[in-house]
Structures are given as C-alpha cells and as structure tokens.
C-alpha cells in the first residue's frame, strides 16, 4: 500500500504525458466521426452519433488514394535503388582494400549532416532544363541519393561485425565476392536491413520539401504534399479534414503498433544520423 502511494505522483506525471501525447490523435479520430453541424456546436466531446460520411467523401471525392499510390511508388523506387547501391558499396568498404576507401566513407558519412534544402536550388534548375520536374524518376533519384549516406554508414558498421572465418571458408569453396555478399552477408544482416527499410521508407513517405518542389503536377502529388494543399482548400470543414488525416496516418500507426520494436529502433537510428 505504501509502495503504491509512493508511485502515485509518478503515475500522475506519466498519465499526463500520455494524455498530451495522445490528445491530437484522439481529437483527430473523434472529430472525423462528427458531422459538420455537430462539430460546430461541440468541439470537445465524443461524437454522439458517429458518422462515416467524412471518410466516404475523402476516399471517393478527393484524390487521396491516388496521392497514397504516388507516395508508395516513390518509397519503393528510392528504397530499392538506395539499398542496392549501399549494399554493394558498404561491402567493398567493409571487406576490401582499395585506395580512397576511408576517404569515401568519411565523405559519405559527412553528407548525412547536410540539410536537403541546400541541394535543391541547382537540382531544380537542372531538372527544369532537362524536363525531370514532376516525374517519378527524377524525384526517386533525389530521394535515393538523400537516404544513401546513412544506409552506407549503417551497413558498413554492420558488415564489419561479420566474422572473418565465414569469408575465408566461403572463399575456399570458390565463392566470389558477389556470391558471398548475397548468400552470406545479406542474410546475416537482416536486422540492419529491416532498420534501414523502416528509416528510409519513413523518410520518403513523410517528406514534404522535395515533394512540394519537384512534384508540382497535381497527378504526381504525394500524400504529404496533397495533405498540405488539401487542408487549405477545406479550411472550414474540420471533420472532413480530420477524416483525411486519420486515413493518412493509419498506415503508420498500424505498422507502429504491430512492429513497435523495429519502429522504435528504426526511428531512433534515423533521427540520430
């Protein structure tokens, strides 16, 4: 009993923190289920008669699903390219001797700290000239480049921990570097690869800056860019907007709850790069 009393203030603080952390999500879901009229009268309470009309309107009358598809295409393209490029490079940096090896790793690692906005002006001017604005391939290339330095850094660190004996014995069996990479190193690196998948997919999925500048065509809008446009257009229809936000955040929230271990590890790794 005494112990319980002692823990009470701690629970009070943690409950308050949890409340603050969840309030926007609760507000978003609760409001999305209200009609415009109900929201006008009652902004705080839970919906008295939950309606799904807002969700229907967002899904059918707005290009929401189309935006999600665009985001998905960019995520898939950028993550695949970046993963291939960084696996090859990290393998060479971790396991082969060559001139300029340390310098390459140092340069690539430093690039993690350069803000993306710095690269944008020349790429925008170049893309305007060669017609890559509002193309998937143009944006995928930029995203792949931006996420690659971190991937190389993480994979190099990981590949170095693979025991030498494994390489020696594989070489004895006549395996070449590519086979060693694909058959031995990559399967052993599954945890690092999952972390990378989470970090990189989230980066591309959540990005607004590149999406707004390089994908200006309405047909190529990503989810995040679409949301930023969408919210201005429906400024007064709060429940409708919130229904859109619920749909937009649902994939991440569901993935987070199902795979929270990977998510926490991935988000931490990505944020501290």
């Amino acid at each position, binding site marked *: 009993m005494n112990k319980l009393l002692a823990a009470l203030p*701690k*629970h009070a603080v*943690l409950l308050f923190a*949890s409340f603050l*952390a969840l309030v*926007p*999500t609760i*507000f978003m879901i609760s*409001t999305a289920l209200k009609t415009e009229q109900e929201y006008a009268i009652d902004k*705080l309470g839970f919906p008295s008669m939950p309606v799904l009309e807002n969700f229907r309107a967002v899904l059918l009358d707005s290009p929401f699903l189309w935006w999600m598809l665009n985001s998905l295409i960019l995520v898939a393209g950028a993550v695949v390219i970046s993963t*291939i*490029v960084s696996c090859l*490079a990290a393998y*060479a*940096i971790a396991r082969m001797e*060559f001139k300029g090896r340390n310098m390459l790793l140092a340069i*690539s690692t430093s*690039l993690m*700290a*350069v*803000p993306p*906005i*710095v*690269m*944008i*002006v*020349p*790429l*925008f*001017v170049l893309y*305007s000239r060669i017609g890559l604005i509002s193309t998937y391939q143009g944006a995928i290339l*930029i995203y*792949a*480049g931006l996420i*690659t*330095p971190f991937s190389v850094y993480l994979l190099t660190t990981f590949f170095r921990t693979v025991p030498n004996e494994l390489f020696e014995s594989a*070489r*004895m069996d*006549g395996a070449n*570097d590519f086979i060693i990479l694909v058959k031995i190193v990559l399967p052993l690196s599954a945890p690092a690869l999952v972390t990378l998948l989470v970090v990189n997919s989230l980066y591309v999925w*959540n*990005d*607004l*800056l590149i999406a707004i*500048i390089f994908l200006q065509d309405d047909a190529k809008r990503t989810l*995040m860019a679409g*949301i*930023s446009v969408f919210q201005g257009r429906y400024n007064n229809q709060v429940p409708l907007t*919130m229904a859109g*936000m619920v749909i937009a*955040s649902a994939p*991440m*929230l569901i993935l*987070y709850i199902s795979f929270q271990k990977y*998510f*926490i590890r991935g*988000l*931490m790794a990505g*944020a*501290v790069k």
Partner: protein
Amino acid sequence: MTRTSRLTPYLYVAPLVLLIAFVFGYPLVRIFEFSFKMVRGIDGPWIGFRNYQLVLGQDLFWESVLHNVQLLLAIPVMVIVSLLVAILLYERVAGWKLYRIIVFVPFVLAIPIIAVVMKRMFQFSGPVNEVLRWLSLDFMALDWIGSSDVALWTVMILIIWRESALGIILFLARMMSLDESVIEAAKLEGANWWQRARYIILPQMRGVIEFFVVVSTITMLSAVFAYVYVIGGGRGGPGTATVVVEFYIFNALIRTSLPGIASAASVMLFLVSVALIFPLFRARRRAAQDEATR
C-alpha cells in the same frame, strides 16, 4: 580460387560515387557558382558578391534567421521534459512499457499530418481555446495561428511536443545500459528518488544529452520546413511571422524565381551546417563510447 581483381572494389563503389556525385556533389559545386551569378533561367553573368549583399541587406532574411535562432529556445524544454519522463519510465512503474509505446506516438506521426491537426486544435474558435475559457483562463486563449506575435510560439509548441518523444526514447535507451547495481546500492543506502536521479543517473547521461542537443540544434536550424509550411499556410504567415531560412530559400527559388539569391542563402546555411558537423561527430563518438564502457 578466384582472386579479387584490383578493379573489383571500384566496381562495387561506382554506383555510390555516381549517386552522391549527382545528388550532393553537383549541387554543392553549383550553389557556390550560382551564388556569384545573376541566374535567369538556367545560367547568367557573374556579378561578384551582389547576391550576398542583397540577401544580407534584406530584413526578411534576418527575420528568418532570427526565427530559426528563436526555435533553439525549444531545446532546453525538450531536454528537461524528455529527461523527466525517461527517468520515470526507467523506474519501471507498473505499466511502463505501455507508457513507453504511448509517449512515442508523436514521433510516429508525420509532421504535415500532425501540423494540420494541431492547426485545427489551436484555431481561435478551436478546442484548445474552448478548454482554456472553460478553465477561466481567458487571457491565455490567444489567436495561436492567426496572430503574428504568437504563431512562431505555436510552431515551437508543436516541435517540442513531437521531438521530445525522440529525446525520451534516446535517454531511456541510454539509462537501460547503465549499471543497475550502483542504483540498487544507492536505494539500499536510503537515497531518495531525487538523489538517485541527480547524483547517479544524470552524471552518466552527459554524452547522450549532448548528442540530443546537437541533433536538435541541426533540426531547428535546417529541418523545420514541414512544420512552418503547414502552420504558416504555405506562406510563412501570418505576414512573415513563421518564415525560416529554409522557407526563405524555397520562396526565392519557387515564388520569385531567383536561383542566385536562393543559392547565396543556401551557401550560408551550408556553411553553418558544416560548422555543426564536427560537434555532431564528436558527440556521436562520445555517446558511443559511453555506451561501450558501461
């Protein structure tokens, strides 16, 4: 037995070299070049330091720098909030795992989404003010989004709310790696909660706190575009109240089509981030060492 040819390593790193040369190398060379040119369309004549003079002579630029600097005020708040929650979680009160999942939710939601939601919550006639009035705190029921005196503080609240979640998880991970026997011993000796936190846990947290501060500084100076884009309605508004340097560059490039001006500002932002790379690497190394010598 196949011998690795001397060319093989270069074949493996070639795609990386090409990719970073295009996405980082080319732009980093070009912003310096553009910053000394009057670029119209794709190129233009050399004009010396005129772009820099124009940027540095513009009130809007200094205002945006000031806004970035003002956002740094959020960092001490983030550190204190994160430390407090992390220490409480570390004590493993009943249900701490559930609390941990919940307090990390802010970091899982994408910035544009959460900014849109918060913008509605902080509307003048929105739920936040309704609660404040209900608590008879009418004087606090501000025009959070629409007033140019308040809007940047609202952005800051949003940033603190989201980025503290990262601090909590980082700090908690570090605490989990501490030697528990020392803390247990202190408990037996009768050290109370505050003494344990202040004299045993905190001193060992220096490395990770320093690291979080450096990472957050980089965020405040160069990665808040998504927050201000949504809260400021795509215009850095109301007026110019939420214009930050990133947004200044965005404006110069997209709205006024002046790549030279945008490049001069980019060069300055780049130099600031280069200056921050060294503290970042030092802090990361130190935090990693702390972890290794636990």
